[in-house]
């Protein structure tokens, strides 16, 4: 009995070790430890009466991670169909520009939010239609949308960085990005809820399986009765919609859209989060939880850069090194290293025993 229990325990332990998420969580904890060593107050939380929520380095990190959570979730679905969505950063700018411009034009705040979401969804649908129904390459399609999107954002604001700080009645949008729910950043809570909803949609229905099937082999999935075109269309549409939410988070946090900078390079961060999360770029199996932790890691790396005070010229290099280290930690060869060593040692001892 005791043996069995012991065995079960080691099994669970092994399973945990072999899971990608474990490595990610370890990486996240290591980053937090590194920051705490440099700044002893890193984990300290205080109550800020000004904003009506908790305050502290971790809180601002979570606040920033909300937008990565959104685009990484959409990106996970797209990537697991063996596609890619490079347009998410630009969609963020377009959606943000539409919302800010609509607000300064006197539109109701809810209508402005809705407008931004509809535009994001529309861009996603265009991507989806081009990829699914016309059979264009996802890389090229979304690359073009990424370039066109920036232009679109500039047209919406006539090339200005529209500022909606002083627009009356925009509080709901401001709250979405800066507010707090029970002391926790509202945008983080909203983002987590959306990730969970998408997760339920994928795992409680057959959606997730369909997506994976399409990613592994669209032809075979078609023969089993799945409609790969509809699935493809759907994932790009979802990705566009989620990117619009990310755009609202990014612009509403300062109530100002920066047509050149908003969402700049974020498609790369999203892809990184997905890859760190253990989803293969070749499509197939995906892990939304992995991507979500990956998104938080991205935000944490950025926080680490500020906390450590890394010289601004060296920040891209630092970022790259951390990501590479995490990827190496996850590589099957490295992960199996301890098991491999154990096996070798056992072999050696048995050899010795035989020799004796």
């Amino acid at each position: 009995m005791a043996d069995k229990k012991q065995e079960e325990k080691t099994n669970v332990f092994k399973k945990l070790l072999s899971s990608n998420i474990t490595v990610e969580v370890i990486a996240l904890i290591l980053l937090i430890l590194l920051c705490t060593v440099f700044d002893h107050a890193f984990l300290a939380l205080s109550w800020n009466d000004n904003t009506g929520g908790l305050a502290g380095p971790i809180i601002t990190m979570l606040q920033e991670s909300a937008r990565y959570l959104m685009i990484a979730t959409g990106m996970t679905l797209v990537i697991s169909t063996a596609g890619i969505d490079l347009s998410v950063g630009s969609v963020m700018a377009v959606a943000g520009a539409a919302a800010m411009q609509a607000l300064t034009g006197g539109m109701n705040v809810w209508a402005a939010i809705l407008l931004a979401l509809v535009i994001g969804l529309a861009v996603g649908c265009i991507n989806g239609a081009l990829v699914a129904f016309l059979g264009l390459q996802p890389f090229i399609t979304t690359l073009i949308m990424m370039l066109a999107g920036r232009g679109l954002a500039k047209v919406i604001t006539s090339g200005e960085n529209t500022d909606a700080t002083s627009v009356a009645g925009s509080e709901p949008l401001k709250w979405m990005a800066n507010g707090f729910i029970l002391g926790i950043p509202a945008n983080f809570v909203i983002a987590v809820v959306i990730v969970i909803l998408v997760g339920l949609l994928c795992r409680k229905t057959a959606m997730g399986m369909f997506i994976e099937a399409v990613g592994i082999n669209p032809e075979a999935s078609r023969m089993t009765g799945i409609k790969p075109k509809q699935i493809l269309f759907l994932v790009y549409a979802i990705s566009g919609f989620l990117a619009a939410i990310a755009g609202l988070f990014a612009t509403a946090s300062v109530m100002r859209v920066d047509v050149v900078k908003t969402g700049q390079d974020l498609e790369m961060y999203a892809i990184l989060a997905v890859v760190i999360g253990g989803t293969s770029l070749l499509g197939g199996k995906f892990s939304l939880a992995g991507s979500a932790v990956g998104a938080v890691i991205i935000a944490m790396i950025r926080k680490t850069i500020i906390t450590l005070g890394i010289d601004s010229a060296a920040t891209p290099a630092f970022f790259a090194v951390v990501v590479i280290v995490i990827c190496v930690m996850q590589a099957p060869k490295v992960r199996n290293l301890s098991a491999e060593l154990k096996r070798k040692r056992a072999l050696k001892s048995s050899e010795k025993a035989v020799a004796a």
Partner: protein
Amino acid sequence: MKNWKKAVALVASAAALVSVAACGSGSSSSSDSGKKTVGFVAVGPEGGFRTANENDIKSAFKSAGFDLIYSPTQNNDQQKQIQAFNKFVNDEVDAIILSSTEDSGWDESLKKAAEAEIPVFTVDRNVDVKDSEAKKAIVSHIGPSNEWAGEQAAEFVNKNFPDGANGFILEGPAGLSVVKDRGAGWDAKVAKNVKVLESQSANWSTDEAKTVTAGLLDKYKSQNPQFIFAQNDEMGLGAAQAVDAAGLKGKVKIITIDGTKNALQALVDGDLSYVIEYNPIFGKETAQAVKDYLGGKDVKSDIQIESKTFDATSAKEALDSNSRAY
């Protein structure tokens, strides 16, 4: 109904993006009516400062009786600028105004201009030329000084904190000459008892500046930061929001450079403390310099354009008089 217009504009923009390749043609007029022809190698509309700057140059040359050919680039593409520049040299215009996106890579083109004896006037951003032949082509540089702007920021801090203070600097992207010059100006004038706890880049972006500032305020809470020098308005506005969220509004003085309307408004509202203008209006001076040179008069090799500094009261006056072009 405004939204309909916007929708039409959206469609038009998509079309425009597709047809971008077909730009930049149109043969330039040679000086048939005895008017001098001037080629303007420009950056193109890029936001408040650039638009105000280029429109002002265009109108100033028009009223000075020149024939100005305007040739903007897209997305800061230097290649397009070089092509436009070489085309002006081949067309043998009387003078070239160069507002470059990059400070290097102009040697070959300038050499050609020197051979063709076409005078070149650089505006706003200076160019870095190694070749001595190429250097001869440049008659004069006209523009406000980034170093001066950095110096003003340092002097404001010196004056307001005679007993010393701690603070941060928010920089633009590493490697740009603007960033270097604004930083050098600050370093040259800042008092010894003023301590910069940290300089971080926020990439000229409001949103990033907010995140970075929030991080820095957390990190240096115990050292009581009292000022933030943001190298442009956009970043200053982001820093102001982080300071406000931390409940430090008014306790941390924020200094920015550029002088856009939004920043002046923030100054009036008390979010910012000091704004140093980077004056884009110098078309008249440029036209005068070109006129003088072509008329055989001597022209100074470095014409520095005066900029203003604003505090809350002067910002209110400037906004009320509605005289600001950007």
